[in-house]
């Protein structure tokens, strides 16, 4: 987390400089499409590929945003609220759809405008739902993401791979091994909470436009979810410094030589990383589905990834749309998957051999994407997220789950209406 935040800070300082380079609106006759997105390794490749095939329909350029999603969102929100017309295309985290749509910062897609990602027949269920708001499609799913259970084969030995949280805790306790799971006061905590709550059979918020959204959180299943979070915060399962651990800290801890952890729950970017750092160690990495709450029901795995949105104040919506149709094409999805370890959203690529070669867990992930449940698509998502972090951090402080439940529900009711001090 530290390294990432410091990098984010550096990027944040640089961003205004980049934004000031007064650029013309056409490049060699083609209308320029400015794409605001966090810096990703695969960006130059897909931009190059799309510009090569554009035939003057558009000239795509990326404007780099900070590395962490909170920072990306803050910069976008400031610009969009000021009606910045240089924002043509936005790489939106899956949780921003509701907020951006309600505020009128992105324009919805009409039926048939999206060639590749316009229907649920084309796109996995989870990513598709994350792009809908108030009965309209506001986002074009670009790539997806979901967390898996990672384990060290040599350390687990011939014990069975845990399928449920209960089994995971039992095995980890027997092995006296911490479970590398995030515990920082950050979005990652909401990712975990949302997955647990939905796996247990309820949901945080029932979506609705114009302030009609309601807090659901049925008591029984929520207590079950809170109990799992409580156990994650207890020794010997809780890793050292848990209350500050982010995804990247876990990746580093798990792949470091002196790690005692047998298990980690994380996004698949950990795999390309270990392949690059230590190919021998990578062979020891096993992967399994995100743990279930109930043995008979598939888990509602966490869902991440980018949706593309078109800025409301763009000067050339046609060009931006053409760029989206290129970026969501199978070829670009393949590049993103193989270069970034981020799985595609297109159903047709579920069995793709080329992606499967660099991401051995592709089949597992695409299976999870159909049962994954997006975090609440609601205009005040950010308030909801801050409320969850406020009540549940640090995990080690959760003792009386009933008390936490009452507190959380109360704060969420206020947060949903943007009436809480957070």
């Amino acid at each position, binding site marked *: 987390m530290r390294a990432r935040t410091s990098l984010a800070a550096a990027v944040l300082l640089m961003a205004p400089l980049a934004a000031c380079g007064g650029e013309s609106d056409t490049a060699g006759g083609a209308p320029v499409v400015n794409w605001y997105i966090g810096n990703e390794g695969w960006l130059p490749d897909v931009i190059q590929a799309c510009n090569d095939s554009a035939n003057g329909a558009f000239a795509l350029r990326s404007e780099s945003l900070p590395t962490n999603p909170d920072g990306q969102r803050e910069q976008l929100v400031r610009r969009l609220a000021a009606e910045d017309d240089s924002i043509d295309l936005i790489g939106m985290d899956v949780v921003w759809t509701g907020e951006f749509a*309600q505020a009128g910062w992105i324009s919805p897609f009409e039926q048939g405008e999206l060639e590749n990602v316009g229907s649920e027949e084309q796109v996995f269920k989870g990513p598709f739902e994350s792009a809908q708001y108030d009965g309209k499609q506001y986002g074009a799913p670009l790539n997806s993401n979901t967390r898996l259970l990672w384990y060290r084969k040599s350390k687990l030995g011939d014990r069975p791979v845990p399928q449920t949280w209960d089994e995971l805790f039992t095995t980890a306790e027997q092995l006296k091994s911490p479970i590398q799971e995030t515990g920082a006061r950050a979005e990652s905590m909401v990712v975990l909470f949302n997955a647990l709550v939905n796996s247990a059979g309820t949901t945080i918020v029932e979506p609705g436009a114009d302030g009609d959204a309601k807090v659901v959180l049925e008591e029984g299943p929520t207590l079950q979810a809170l109990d799992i979070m409580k156990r994650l915060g207890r020794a010997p399962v809780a890793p050292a410094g848990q209350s500050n651990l982010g995804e990247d800290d876990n990746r580093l801890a798990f792949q470091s030589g002196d790690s005692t952890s047998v298990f980690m729950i994380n996004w698949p970017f950990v795999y390309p990383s270990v392949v690059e750092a230590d190919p021998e160690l990578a062979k020891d990495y096993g992967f399994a589905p995100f743990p279930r709450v109930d043995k008979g029901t598939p888990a509602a795995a966490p869902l991440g990834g980018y949706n593309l949105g078109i800025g409301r104040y763009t000067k050339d919506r046609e060009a931006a749309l053409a760029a989206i149709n290129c970026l969501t094409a199978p070829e670009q999805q393949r590049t993103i998957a193989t270069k970034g370890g981020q799985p595609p959203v297109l159903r047709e690529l579920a069995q793709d051999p080329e992606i499967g070669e660099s991401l051995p867990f592709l089949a597992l992930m695409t299976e999870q994407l159909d049962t994954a449940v997006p975090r609440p698509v609601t205009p005040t998502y950010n308030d909801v997220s801050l409320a969850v972090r406020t009540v549940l951090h640090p995990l080690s402080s959760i003792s009386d789950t009933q008390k936490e439940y009452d507190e959380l529900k109360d704060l969420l009711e206020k947060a949903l209406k943007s009436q809480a001090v957070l």
Partner: protein
Amino acid sequence: MTTTTDAGSRRIGAPEPSGRKPAKRSTDRAQAERRLGIKLAAPAAILMLAVTAFPILYAIWLSLQRYDLRNPDDKGFVGLSNYLLVLGDGTWWTAVGSTTLITVVSVFLELVIGLAFALVMHRAIFGRRTVRTAILVPYGIITVISAFAFAFAVAPDTGFLPGSVDPLSSTGGSFATIILTEVWKTTPFMSLLLLAGLATVPEELQEAAKVDGATAWQRLWKITLPNMKGAIMVALLFRALDAFRIFDTVYVQTAGALNTQTISGLGYNALVSRVNLGLGSAISILLFLMIIAIAFVFVKLFKTNLGTVKGGD
């Protein structure tokens, strides 16, 4: 800035009334000078109004509205309800408590250490410049950077602390780290202000006391400190106003976790992250009022004279 000019002008003006009483009716010349003075000061005054008064008034106006950029259509005048919402919320009072704790402890430590530094700088015989520069270095470092430096220094993986000691995972440890960072960073500022005060303590008094057999400790308490009381109060006031608005260090090191959230942090969350302009402005205005209250207490109750760094009268 204003303080030094005020002090300067007063000192220049001071010898004047020594001989005769000032005339009751001002002369034409004095009136013309007065008019010229107003004209010369006007541009600066107008600029100040534009860059400070306008934003403050605008924030007050916003704080009386229901105005959330995420829902721009649902906007309207709501009177004081944003304030009632903030003041009736436990999170707000926790933030007030933690901000006060950080302010009081860090300013106190800065005063003690800053005074020691000031004495060293004042009495240094060899390498006077080097000593002064060395003491001032932390103040030249950007707060975000020093916050990161201390966060790295206490982290279990990159830090200097033994074993798995991790201050930033407990409330006490987090406060200690934040306060340590603040003290390290701003003590030089404090000692600079105190050094200015030390320079005004008459050397004759010190020598007379020495002749009378006063120990160094007695001279510090009976002569130096009473004579620089004014400077100490000014330094405390400046630092208290500054420390109460603390944001960067907490944002970087804990992001408000473990009950370390400060008032500025709440304002940032509401204004920048949640773009709830009404609620966020109410928090900012409340912070503004608290800052005014601190300044008022210092100036009226403790009789801090901002016009002079010289004390003891």
